[in-house]
């Protein structure tokens, strides 16, 4: 064997393979370092007369710490909503291997339910929606929770009627959920109209908070989103780690048949996981409908965010969803803020680059494990 290994031809091939293996690592590490240097120190700021060449809207972090911090917070808080929605998606996939392509319409329907309930509770509807000063905190929270419950019931219904009898046929299940998404999205346009609307934040949250750091006054609603996302993440983590149901779910992710053979009612566990996953989509819809807006096409966008988050983080992993959401939120916000001012519209490419880099190294995502 040693004679074979020392043959010059073989040695050269081994060396080539090594270069081929480490080049992408080196390239991506270099790109990340370059991005940090650019954002931190190098990016020049636009002049008073607009942006020229590579000048960016804010300039480097050293030059303008206030906008840097605001961008950082924007990224982290956006990641909060991404995480809430994507954690439901990844929970369902992890246990049942069901890619729920209807997750986006569950999100949108949840948002619409919360929106309509809020308008009914407040009772003052106008063409321009509600003002936050009209809305009490419970008039935001109760509609959102009811929406979550409604979508949970819808999700379990969908699972029992359409997905229970064809377990294991993952492509067919994905196609079924796509069909449901087509019908539901079209019916939502018919019933809720084609205009973008948003859920009003409660008045107590809709203000700016002085953070006393670099003079940043940051919107309280976004910090609230972050707090809610962290709370949901912790609750999910405790549920999966500390309770019996969570234990069964974790076992089911690893070996469904074994769990079932040990006498656990795996069908009940499936239904519970589907209910929780859908409820997260519904609640995410209320959160996202307040954070952004609700309208036709929004379902597709949030399905995309969920997909990107779980592809990056690894399907079925809660920690992966958190990391994926954080990466997506940070990359999309920083790329649109720190690209040269005349080219910020290219920021969408960076979402793709992020996805491409992760897939090139880890086809199953950062925390993904083979099924």
């Amino acid at each position, binding site marked *: 064997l040693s004679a074979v290994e020392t043959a010059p031809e073989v040695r050269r091939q081994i060396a080539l393979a090594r270069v081929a293996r480490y080049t992408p690592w080196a390239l991506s590490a270099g790109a990340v370092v370059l991005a940090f240097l650019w954002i931190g120190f190098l990016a020049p700021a636009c002049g008073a007369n607009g942006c020229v060449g590579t000048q960016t809207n804010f300039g480097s972090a050293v030059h303008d710490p206030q906008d840097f911090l605001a961008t950082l917070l924007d990224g982290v808080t956006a990641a909060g909503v991404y995480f809430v929605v994507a954690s439901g998606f990844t929970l369902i996939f992890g246990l049942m291997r069901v890619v729920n392509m209807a997750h986006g319409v569950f999100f949108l329907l949840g948002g619409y339910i919360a929106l309509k309930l809020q308008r009914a509770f407040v009772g003052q509807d106008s063409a321009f929606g509600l003002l936050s000063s009209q809305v009490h905190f419970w008039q935001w929270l109760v509609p959102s929770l009811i929406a979550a419950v409604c979508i949970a019931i819808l999700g379990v219904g969908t699972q029992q009627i359409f997905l229970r009898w064809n377990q294991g046929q993952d492509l067919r299940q994905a196609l*079924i959920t796509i069909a*449901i998404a*087509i019908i539901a*999205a*079209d019916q939502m346009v018919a019933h809720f109209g084609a205009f973008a609307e948003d859920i009003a934040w409660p008045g107590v949250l809709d203000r700016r908070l002085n953070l006393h750091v670099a003079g940043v006054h940051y919107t309280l609603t976004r910090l609230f989103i972050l707090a809610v996302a962290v709370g949901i993440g912790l609750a999910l983590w405790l549920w999966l780690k500390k309770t019996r149901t969570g234990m069964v779910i974790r076992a089911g992710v690893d070996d469904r048949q074994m769990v079932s053979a040990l006498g656990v009612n795996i069908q009940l566990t499936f239904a519970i996981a589907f209910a929780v996953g859908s409820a997260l989509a519904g609640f995410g819809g209320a959160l996202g409908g307040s954070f952004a807006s609700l309208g036709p*096409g929004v379902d597709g966008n949030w399905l995309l965010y969920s997909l990107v988050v779980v592809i990056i983080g690894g399907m079925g992993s809660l920690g992966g969803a958190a990391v994926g959401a954080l990466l997506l939120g940070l990359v999309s916000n920083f790329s649109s803020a720190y690209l040269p001012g005349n080219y910020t519209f290219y*920021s969408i*490419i960076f979402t793709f680059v992020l996805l491409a880099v992760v897939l090139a190294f880890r086809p199953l995502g950062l925390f993904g494990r083979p099924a």
Partner: protein
Amino acid sequence: VRLTSQELKRAFQVAIALGVLVLAALGPLIFNTYWISFILTQVFLVGVAAASLIFLSAYGGMVSLAQVALYGIAGFVLGNVVTTGNSKGLNLGWNPWLGVLLGIVIATAVAFLFGALASRSAGIYFLMITLTYAVIANLFFGQVTTFSGFGGISGVRTPGFIGQVDVHPNRLYYVSLVVAVVVYAAIRYLVRTPFGITLQGVRDDPVRMSSLGYNVPLHRMVAFGFAGFIASLAGVLFVWWNGHIDPASIDLSATIDLLVIAVIGGLYRLEGAWLGAFVFVLINNYIRSVPGLGHIGITEERFHTVIGVIFLAIVLLSPGGLMGILGKAGEVIERLVQGRRGVAATPAPSAGTPSSGSGPD
């Protein structure tokens, strides 16, 4: 001379294929202008795009949602290269053929890149990764005003021999027909080559193929690149036919529509591409004329509800799509015919498999 049932089946299939082909070739004599320019031309070109999807799923085990994005890339490149006077885009105003060449080359190159990134995944992961490609391509052309922006690119000229599509609809009709036939023949040929056979091996058992020494990701990547090339042909035809392309032409709804077409036709049979396209375009055009639908709140605007219900029904009842249903119907007929011939020719009970029924002949 008595034919075996295999030969009979084959003859029957060839007869149907020839019949469809002759009907299509004589199209302008049979159908009115509306059918030629709005229905059949669209069926051919959408069928080509669907064929690229079905090729990947039937022979590569990869259900791709990126075909519409690739078709759009070819279309946008063509539009940017040949047009002048759009408010957005490059407005290069070059030769139409150069536009076609660049469109196809760039879209195929992007397909190889996409394929390389997704090549270590298969099945459901592949579906998700390609869906993100599709949405990102749509957002890219929506946001990047250098190439398009939301308004898209209008006034795309066709090469001289096709002329203005609304004046000479028959020319583009025949071009689309020829492209469709060539694409069909090329795929049928490719899957019989060593590459095609290996690809089917990769589809069935990637681990075994890998241990036999085949480069599995490379085969997936090349197949994806080839499918991207076919999709780019459809993109060129689409822009010629439509004269205009905008991000809405490749949005999520369009992406899903192509999947719906492929599934309705049959994800595992190449012919399903055009069958699915035909059914889809027909429903889209004639939904308003179906009596009774209006009373239950289904109007032209609710087209996607109708197509979604049909899609759901197909997926629930016949995962092989309409081609699967036709295949099953064919089997039933074959069994009936065989049963009758079996009784007439060989009275002795046959212990063989059903397909050996006419062996003694």
